[in-house]
């Protein structure tokens, strides 16, 4: 078969072409089709600049010759095939490489600053340019997770969770560049592996190795919540207590039978927790009740929720990234598996702006950028790390961050499309 009839369509009116069937060579690949579209556009308007396109057939990216793809997807080659084209996603451009003193356990970035948790028992604040702004020391053990609570121009609130079983709530005065530990949240009986702040910025939850999920208030108060001072506390603990007022959890949700590895707020009143007991549980934060359980068959390392597509992505101790529909009531429902990693997937993060894209970090030292429309292969492999990747993040400004056991935090600028660069 030499020729196929295809009809091209796009969402972007800038690049729209006539809605008539074209005869295209069956063996044509993405580059050939892109060339064709560009020719059409150039014929229409003289001032057209060459744009790379990517092509989708029935919601799947074209990665092989057209006819091979259609055979694989069981699409009839007799009829007119409708091909959607979008501007090609540009490769993420490496921007910064921020060196740490120790392994980077967690990262969270905002428009201005990057907050990282480090295995040297500190949390660090960096500017987007890679300048070290602040080192927050106070934990007596490895910092496992960090999160921004609130950002003002004057002061910011942030939390850090550590293996020393506490979560510290810090206030960072931006102008004076000073941090102060406001509260020490104690109550966990194990390493606190994950924290997440809710959308109202008044509460946060934490998941710990002691199998408990705790909800805390994120509002700083002056008076001490609890004056429970045991005399027989070890010296170390007393030292940390001086860092701030002790705070106890608002609620404790128990139900997991193994350590909780990752928590997040999927809604204003819904918490999602992933655990080593092979389940993802959805909790009602208001009542503290268990809403539903998604059961997998591997330990979950990380979970991420995208409000755009309302799906959960999970990374577990195998090679796959699985997409879940949290609203499904019939137990486990894996919508899709993204398989390309060769080691455990330690961390996943949905794009905050794009409903199809997510980023994943793995023990095979590679960060991968995925589009759920192309589940066989990732869009881009970011192979910069020399050791295990432990955390990834994706800001709304299109910054990809990944930190790992090679003590480096890599930043990538990810313009979704070439036109965004110009814009």
């Amino acid at each position, binding site marked *: 078969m030499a020729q196929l009839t295809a009809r091209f369509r796009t969402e972007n009116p800038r690049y729209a072409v006539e809605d008539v069937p074209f005869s295209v060579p069956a063996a044509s690949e993405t580059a050939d089709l892109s060339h064709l579209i560009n020719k059409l556009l150039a014929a229409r308007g003289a001032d057209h600049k060459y744009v790379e396109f990517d092509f989708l057939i029935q919601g799947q990216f074209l990665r092989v010759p057209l006819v091979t793809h259609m055979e694989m997807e069981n699409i009839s080659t007799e009829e007119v095939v409708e091909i959607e084209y979008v501007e090609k996603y540009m490769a993420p451009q490496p921007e910064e490489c921020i060196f740490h003193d120790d392994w980077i356990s967690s990262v969270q970035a905002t428009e201005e600053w990057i907050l990282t948790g480090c295995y040297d028992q500190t949390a660090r604040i960096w500017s987007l340019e890679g300048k070290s702004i602040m080192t927050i020391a106070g934990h007596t053990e490895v910092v496992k997770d960090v999160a921004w609570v609130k950002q003002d121009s004057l002061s910011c609130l942030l939390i850090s969770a550590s293996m020393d079983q506490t979560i510290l709530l810090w206030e960072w005065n931006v102008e004076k560049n000073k941090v102060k530990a406001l509260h020490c949240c104690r109550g966990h009986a*194990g390493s606190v592996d994950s924290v997440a702040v809710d959308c109202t910025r008044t509460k946060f939850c934490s998941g710990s190795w002691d199998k408990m999920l705790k909800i805390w208030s994120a509002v700083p108060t002056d008076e001490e919540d609890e004056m429970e001072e045991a005399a027989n506390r070890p010296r*170390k603990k007393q030292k940390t207590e001086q860092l701030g007022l002790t705070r106890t959890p608002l609620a404790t949700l128990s139900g997991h039978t193994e350590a909780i590895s990752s928590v997040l707020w999927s809604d204003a009143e819904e918490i999602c927790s992933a655990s080593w007991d092979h389940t993802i549980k959805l909790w009602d934060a208001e009542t503290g009740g268990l809403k539903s359980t998604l059961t997998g*068959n591997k330990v979950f390392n990380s979970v991420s929720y995208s409000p755009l597509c309302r799906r959960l992505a999970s990374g577990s101790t195998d090679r796959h990234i699985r997409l879940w529909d949290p609203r499904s009531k019939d137990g486990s429902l894996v919508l899709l598996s993204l398989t390309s990693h060769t080691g455990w997937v330690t961390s996943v993060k949905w794009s905050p702006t794009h409903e199809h894209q997510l980023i994943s970090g793995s*023990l095979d030292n590679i960060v991968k950028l995925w589009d759920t429309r192309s589940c066989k292969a990732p869009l881009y492999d970011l192979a910069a790390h020399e050791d295990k990747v432990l955390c990834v993040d994706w800001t709304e400004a299109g910054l990809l961050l990944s930190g790992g*056991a090679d003590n480096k935090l890599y930043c990538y600028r990810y313009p979704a499309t070439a036109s965004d660069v110009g814009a």
Partner: protein
Amino acid sequence: MEQPLELESDDDLTDSEESVYSGLEDSGSDSTNSSAAEEEEEEEDEGEQEEPSNGAAPKVKGAPRKSKALGADPPLKDSEGLSVPDEYEEDIRNTVGNIPMEWYQDFPHIGYDLEGKRIYKPIRNKDELDKFLEKMENPDYWRTVQDKMTGADIKLTDEQVDLVHRLQKGQFGDVHFNPYEPAIDFFTHEVMIHPVTNRPADKRSFIPSLIEKEKVSKLVHAIKMGWIKPRKPKEDTPTYYDLWAHEDPNSILGRHKMHVPAPKMKLPGHEESYNPPPEYLLSEEEKLAWEQQEPAERRLNFVPQQYRCLRAVPGYPRFIHERFERCLDLYLCPRQRKMRVNVDPEDLIPKLPKPRDLQPFPTTQALVYRGHSSLVRCLSVSPSGQWLASGSDDGTVRFWEVCTARCMKTLPVGGVVKSIAWNPNPTICLVAVCVEQSVLLVNPCLGDKLLYGATDQVLESYVPPEEERVQPVQWVTATSEEHSRGIRLTVQHSKALKQVTWHGKGDYFATVVADNSNMQVLIHQTSKRWSQNPFRKSKGLVQCVLFHPIRPYFFVATQRYVRVYNLLKQELTKKLMANCKWVSSMAIHPAGDNVICGSYDSKLAWFDLDLSTRPYQLLRHHRKALRSVAFHKHYPLFASGSDDGTVIVCHGMVYNDLLQNPLLVPVKVLKGHTLTMDLGVLDVVFHPTQPWVFSSGADGTVRLYT
């Protein structure tokens, strides 16, 4: 019984006609005719004495001609019959009557004439020569016969000779008799116009019969009354019946049931061809050798021969012989039904489930824990599964975070770490480390602060007893410098140690000393700091010891045996025979009824303690010595690490019901360790909650497989 023409033929052997007669007489004769024959003889052969012994000779001679003579038999009798009345009239000279003339053999006379005078025999003094001369000279000799009644020689006339000839030919004696006159039938087949009788027909043949009418009316009446049914139409279908319908199938003759077909003959090959390929033809030497061989020894029982065309092939001379030999073979050779067991070899292999169905089990290497600079001898995982402790030949103990392979702590202990054991009690945070001659009890200060704080408190709350007890070891409290490193207690032995293992409750631990004395095994109690030697006598070099997870049993593995002691009753309960040369390691199933033993001769023995003291199964999957074996706490998995650098994970399902034996299926070979100094994997241990296995190798790494 005499033969009428015997006498005449006696001498004249050359005459063919006579021979014909003698044969004829021999066959066809019956008692009625015999008397007539006698008479004829008497009449004709008077002169010559007949010898009874002569009868035999012509018989033999005449045998081939029997068939010829038979046809002439009946007419001859007829002619005799006819001739009888003549003879009566003629033969009146001798009055002795119809008696055998032999009676007069010894007398000079032969009978009596009508006057009653003796009839004397004619003087016969001829000897054989005279007889012969006469035979030669007398032209009428052939027609001269002796009259028996008178003894005189009679020359037969021409008519008489003719008569004899005719009779010999089977013709009637009378020349004029025509035996083939046309016969006149009394009842002829031709239809005559006139009846034979001329009687008019009876009246009754015209009148209908009254009796018949009566009979008919009776029948008609009976039919009307329904007494007689009209004749049923005859069924055309022939009735069959199944001859063997009711036959008992078991009563079939054994001969039929056990029919053994004759073995098939070998089909002809190229040698038998009329034009075989030249390599099948025998050379001269081969032919010679073939001829010299015994027929039974010959490979071929014929010589292959070549012919120009099939037409030129002669008849097969050995055909009958060959058939005969075949028949001999068949009936002389007893045939027996061979009960061949028709078993598919596939069926003999036990049905094992596919490893796919036995998930989860570790399949791939996930993490490598790097940091040790020398071989890592021992591993232990914390009961929570968060931490991993490893002891190495570089004199350090390292504590790792399991999920990231982060080395959290490094504890230099100043000696080769032979064995390490995390306290199985989840409320105690204590690790026992075997370093040279002492056991260090280390608090790693990892995990829950409350927990490790409480552990320290428990250890500190020890109050020494008032009276000092003699102990085989020394308990030494750590110095402050050691305390800061985490070491809490040191149990100093007198000799180098090779193993330490905890009891399930976490208070007792046992150590094995590497020597051959009775002090090899010691049991220590942490809370009381008290050690004891449970064995008075050494039973061999102890390799390793284990506490039963539930019951108060104590397993001691020596080189070849595993002894199970009851600690409460203080006696030997069982002695397991390992069937291997040197036990290296041992692990017990969490339920406590199954034990596996690894050995240096690369075998893994699974004992079912309920079943027997011998291995339930012996697995030989490794190519080199096994160093370590381990059971998983929850999953039905066990693993073995070997010097060949591999870890083999097996599915070992133990069923609750006693009737079902454990199911052992090897599921995965895990590779990753590089061989260093001919050593591969030194220790394997399972994660307490996940189906993951850790292995430590001589290459200084610890690997996690998930």
